């Protein structure tokens, strides 16, 4: 008797301990199914900054004692990031390479009528020149990629697909745990794309790299569906909501998958 009651309890405990769709631990590009729930999952809340909470008046009184006073400080110019200086040089080098290639092209056109074995050798030299220019351009692109693409921050892109027919939504909202809500209206073009079997990106924004709940709703009066997701840090995380089975705005009838964008250069 005791065992019988223990098993469902432990089953529920196991369910409760099931982590969110951990996109963070999944290889890039591999979709993970995300459960969309009708009832908001109850997550234990860990206390934080307890001393601050208990002594806020005292600490604020300490801060109130700060007085604005005039100080003499020499304004110093900050050093310019050397990378930015290098970018200018790189642009100039790219232009110079283009000019060399154009000059070579022009010379080649002029010599077309005097083709000979010797001139074929010259043509090879010109092709080598173009190859070298391309190689240098590739290096420059690599530098730019390392500087900028390497600073990818954690973001979430929401993509819709599927067409549920008559119950197709005209808008959706996504509520985040920090209290912000993103409301999106679907344009006629986007709805046409969904009807034709396409997919549309409706949202792309920065998100906190942690396990969190999102509430998605299709229409103001519709009940939200709850998704638990852990976006991978410093990656573009994609969340696809398949609307094919969306019934009467019931967000929990939507199938959701998440994955991270594979942004490695081939």
């Amino acid at each position, binding site marked *: 008797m005791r065992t019988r009651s223990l098993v469902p309890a432990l089953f529920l405990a196991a369910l409760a301990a099931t982590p969110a769709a951990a996109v963070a631990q999944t290889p890039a590009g591999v979709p993970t199914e995300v459960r969309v729930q009708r009832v908001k999952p109850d997550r234990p809340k860990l206390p934080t900054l307890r001393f601050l909470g208990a002594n806020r008046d005292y600490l604020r009184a300490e801060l109130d004692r700060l007085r604005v006073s005039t100080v003499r400080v020499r304004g110093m110019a900050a050093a310019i990031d050397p990378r930015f200086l290098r970018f200018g040089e790189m642009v100039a080098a790219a232009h110079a390479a283009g000019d060399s290639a154009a000059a070579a092209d022009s010379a080649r056109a002029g010599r077309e009528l005097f083709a000979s074995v010797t001139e074929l050798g010259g043509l090879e030299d010109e092709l080598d020149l173009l190859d070298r220019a391309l190689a240098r351009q590739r290096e420059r692109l690599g530098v730019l990629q390392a500087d900028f693409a390497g600073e990818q921050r954690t973001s979430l892109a929401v993509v819709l697909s599927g067409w549920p027919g008559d119950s197709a939504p005209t808008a959706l909202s996504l509520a985040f745990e920090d209290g912000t809500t993103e409301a999106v209206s679907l344009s006629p073009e986007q709805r046409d794309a969904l009807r034709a079997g396409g997919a549309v990106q409706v949202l792309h924004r920065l998100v906190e*790299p942690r396990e969190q709940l999102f509430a998605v709703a299709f229409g103001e009066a519709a009940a939200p569906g709850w998704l638990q997701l852990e976006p991978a840090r410093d990656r573009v995380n994609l969340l696809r909501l398949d609307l094919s089975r969306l019934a009467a705005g019931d967000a929990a009838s939507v199938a959701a998958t998440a994955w991270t964008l594979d942004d490695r250069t081939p």
Partner: protein
Amino acid sequence: MKNGFLRPMGMALVVAALAAVSAAAKPAPPIAARAGLELARAAASAWAADAELVYVENDEDVNAQGGAARWGYLYVSPATGRARAWSVRDGRIAAAENVEMVFEAPPLPDGWIDSAEALAVADREAGRAFRKGAQGHLSTMLLMRGAFDESDPDRATWTLVYTAPGAPSLWVVVDAAEGKVRRTWRG
């Protein structure tokens, strides 16, 4: 026959549940305050582009090396006037919440000493004697700027609060840039 099928399934569920519960209950390794800073900063920059760190506090007990299983980081957005805290545990954000209070602490400068160094200094100067004499322990470490140091309130300081049963607490303020004790008091 029915029981023969259900029993192994029940056992499997028990094992799965125990494994899940045990994974959730696994104690997190203690880390120094700076170890969680980068992750908190990543979350803060997603929340507000102008987010500034203004306050750090241990969310779980600090050990003898200045490490805690969880540290809390408070950021404010000057543009919106909002504040939000992130609590980092074992390389992950374990909690996040909006802080609904006006807290106009100035932003912390870069280069503050870590919790281990601050604790070592405070222990050496006053904390160790308090622990021995009053049977006390360190209850709180907090890092902020603009409080606890009347002579130079612009400096960021670590404040360590040692408590003991039946005795006034010991407060030790450590300069977070120079690593020197600036003041101590009981209260």
